[in-house]
């Protein structure tokens, strides 16, 4: 137990900060994922064949390729890509992107592919009558989307969004290969310096279980709240 003490003698405070880091990366990745979903869901639903192709290739490629490979792509290619874009604007210095940004971006793109599928399914399952009713009422496009479709879509998507959250949370453990100090990386460091991998990795497992348990509780209560009256 003294291994978990706070302060200089134990790993308690380090692991606590690492847990906060895991939460921060997961939330950032989830938000980036939503932004991607916001772009790609309309593309997938559009009647234009070309837009469709773009939307479908995004979800197919990302969901068919291992997360680790995507992370390596960003880890090794991220700063190169940014430097290339910067060089177009005449900036030729070396740019290093920190592990947090690369990591949450990589996980965000993965989580976005899953969110896109969820949102697409939710929109497709909204009753056709809703579209017709808002047309009859003469609502303009924005009111129709934000006041009619959005609220219903979110309610339908919520159970699956909590699945995406679980996947995203667990995927963040893979960013440890890039050196970002989250739960997995901190456990790796602690296991290395104390030669007690069994304890620290098991403790990491407990931390992840705790995170998934608590977030499921929260999301389930949200689900209950938003499905009132249905």
């Amino acid at each position, binding site marked *: 137990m003294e291994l978990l003490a706070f302060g200089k003698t134990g790993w308690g405070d380090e692991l606590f900060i690492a847990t906060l880091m895991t939460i921060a990366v997961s939330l950032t990745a989830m938000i980036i994922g939503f932004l991607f979903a916001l772009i790609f869901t309309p593309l997938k639903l559009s009647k234009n064949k070309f837009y469709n192709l773009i939307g479908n290739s995004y979800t*197919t*490629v990302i*969901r*068919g*390729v*291992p*997360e*680790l*490979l995507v992370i*390596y*792509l960003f880890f*090794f*290619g991220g700063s*190169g890509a940014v430097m290339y874009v910067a060089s177009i604007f005449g900036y030729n210095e070396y740019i290093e992107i920190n592990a947090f940004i690369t990591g949450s971006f990589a996980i965000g793109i993965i989580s976005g592919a899953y969110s896109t599928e969820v949102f697409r399914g939710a929109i497709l399952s909204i009753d056709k009558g809703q579209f017709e009713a808002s047309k009859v009422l003469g609502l303009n496009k924005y009111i129709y989307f934000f006041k009619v479709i959005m609220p219903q879509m979110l309610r339908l998507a919520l159970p699956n969004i909590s699945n995406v959250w*679980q996947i995203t949370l*667990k*995927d963040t*453990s*893979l960013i*440890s*290969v890039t050196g970002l100090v989250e739960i*997995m990386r901190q*456990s*790796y460091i602690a*296991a290395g310096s104390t*030669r*007690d*991998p*069994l304890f620290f*990795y*098991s403790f*990491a*497992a407990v931390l*992840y*279980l705790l995170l*998934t*348990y608590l977030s499921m509780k929260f999301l389930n209560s949200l689900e209950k709240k938003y499905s009132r009256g249905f």
Partner: protein
Amino acid sequence: MDFELMINSFPKLLNATLVTLKLLSASLFFGLFVGLFFAILRISKNKFLNTFSYGFSYVFRGTPLLVQIFIIYFGLGQIEYLRSTMLWTVLKEPYWCAIIAFSLNTGAYTSEILRSAFQTIKRGYTEAGKSLGLKYSTIFYKIHIPIAIKQSLPAYGNEIILMLKGTSLASTVTLLDLTGVAKYIISTTFKPIEVFIVAGGIYLFITFLVHNFIKYLEKKFSYQ
């Protein structure tokens, strides 16, 4: 774009694909037994067995696969007792550690898939079997299992693809699978995009094959 690198790395990556496929097939094979075992415990009426099975699948589904591999590969070696048993010959090999972790992980998901398949079997089928005077084991093997297979095929197809992606974590315990070799080539040539396209293409191709195979099976098992 460095096309020469893409062509040169292709045979190396294809070789590594064999390792990936071996890991995948071994994990799915053992995972199916693990899954079936825990699914049967889960539908049993015994409270203790039931909770045990639920706990197993909750823990393995609620923690990242990476943690599970690390516990088995780095953690279990720490137990002195294990080092003296026959098990150690298996556990000191990263290859087998990866397979054990993958099998348990996919077993947890498979048990959930099979459980829900068993639970959706209509009571009428069991009753029909009973009224025909079939033994319980005959009802289970000849009625429940075929229906459960059909019910769980789409979800199991997804699980195969998830597991294919999961095998990439074998590269974290020194195995040179497709992702491991891809990472090695990337870190020696610093050409991530080219290698990603080739390695990702191979993964997508396998996904495509699995997807179509499952579709074919679904057709075969549909009795309408």
